[in-house]
């Protein structure tokens, strides 16, 4: 039996990549010098934001193969076979995620540019550690820079979301 090649080739500078975005299989044509952030935005996933474009600010964060990662540092072609969750896959205006609700209610959103990345980080934290300490929250959000606030409200929002999500789990289990 012929072994499947673990490689894909570019044609005229473009790769055809197959990946899952927010649970749906997608085939995207991406340029060889393009990063995942640009490819996602070009294909309509505009929740991930371009801030520094150098991996410092966290506004481009997406969940990449189960871990929050910086879409501005991931070559788009290397997302071939990957599973990606963007902020659009976390919640929507009509059906917000408890973390999104908590951010609004805690007054954690000012200009909002950093918030998608922050919610992506917070979601992964609460999915893996439902009762984080303040230190753990601050450590987990240390790659998400906010230039409007002093992070106090965001930390409060994550605490509030943790409480609500725990309550929902308890109610759901009853």
């Amino acid at each position, binding site marked *: 039996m012929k072994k499947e090649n673990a490689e894909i080739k570019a044609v005229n500078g473009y790769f055809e990549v197959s990946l899952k975005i927010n649970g749906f299989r997608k085939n995207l044509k991406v340029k060889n010098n393009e990063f995942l952030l640009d490819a996602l935005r070009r294909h309509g996933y505009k929740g991930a934001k371009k801030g520094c474009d150098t991996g410092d600010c966290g506004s481009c964060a997406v969940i990449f193969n189960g871990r*929050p990662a910086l879409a501005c540092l991931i*070559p788009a072609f290397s997302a071939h076979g990957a599973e990606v969750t963007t902020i659009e896959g976390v919640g929507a205006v009509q059906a917000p995620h408890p973390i999104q609700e908590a951010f609004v209610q805690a007054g954690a959103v000012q200009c909002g540019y950093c918030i998608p990345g922050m919610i992506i980080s917070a979601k992964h934290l609460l999915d893996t550690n439902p009762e984080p300490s303040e230190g753990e929250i601050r450590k987990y959000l240390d790659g998400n820079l906010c230039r409007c606030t002093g992070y106090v409200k965001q930390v409060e929002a994550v605490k509030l979301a943790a409480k609500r999500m725990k309550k929902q789990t308890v109610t759901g289990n009853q």
Partner: protein
Amino acid sequence: MNNIKCYSFPRTPKEALSVLLNKKANAIAVAGGTLVAKTLPETVETFLDLKNLPLNHIKKQGGDLILGATATFDAIDNSKLAQSWAGGVLSHAAARCSSQLIRNMATIGGNIARPHSFNIFPAVLLGLDARVKLLSEAGVKTCPFSGLYGPGLGAGPGRDLIILEVIIPARTKNWVCRFEKFARTEASWDAYLTLFMGVEIADGSVCAARVIVGALSPKPFRAASAEQILSGARLNPGVIEEACLELARCLDTAHQHKADEFKKEVAATLLKRFLESLGQPA
């Protein structure tokens, strides 16, 4: 990345090496990609992605601690085994690297593949007498970490070698160690100074000492004369003072250019705090 024509994602180190050795492929090996993704040379035509290699383990083998090359900083930070080794210095060092989003992606193999002053792990691995397991055309071999960037290893990791594992010897398990990063902010990826300090104490005396200075040059260096003062000594204020002064001197003599005064003072202060925290002088 304008000239990338092939994205290769092998599943075994052997496959990865064959791509790397194929001169026509003109490949570059990338693990976490946090450093090289934005700085790929335009000559590269094959992006060799190592993230699918089964090398993300953190385990104990024959008493040694084994860190797979694609173990991420976050995995090392949160590994119970790494936390239990040498006072948890590996986990502590991993946690001091940049931000959580970088720690989720960056790997220990990527961090040591090239000598850079801002790398976190080289100082720690040099201090813990680590060895590195490598795969080359000639087969698997191990070399001391201190020899990783030296001659005799061909073009080096990621060029004609694949880093498989980092081996931390069993004898360092109970060493008392500390890693300090002195930087502008906690999340800064570069630092003014990094310092690894480690001692093994038996019967009230220091039987092994390691003082490694990082961030001042692409490769970390041992402050051997400061280590000598500590080795065999019973720690008392006089010995501590002498070792700290010697460390400050080492910062000057190890390089062609004199180190900034504040860096010498910081290094000496951090070493003093560490040695005093061992509780021996009391």
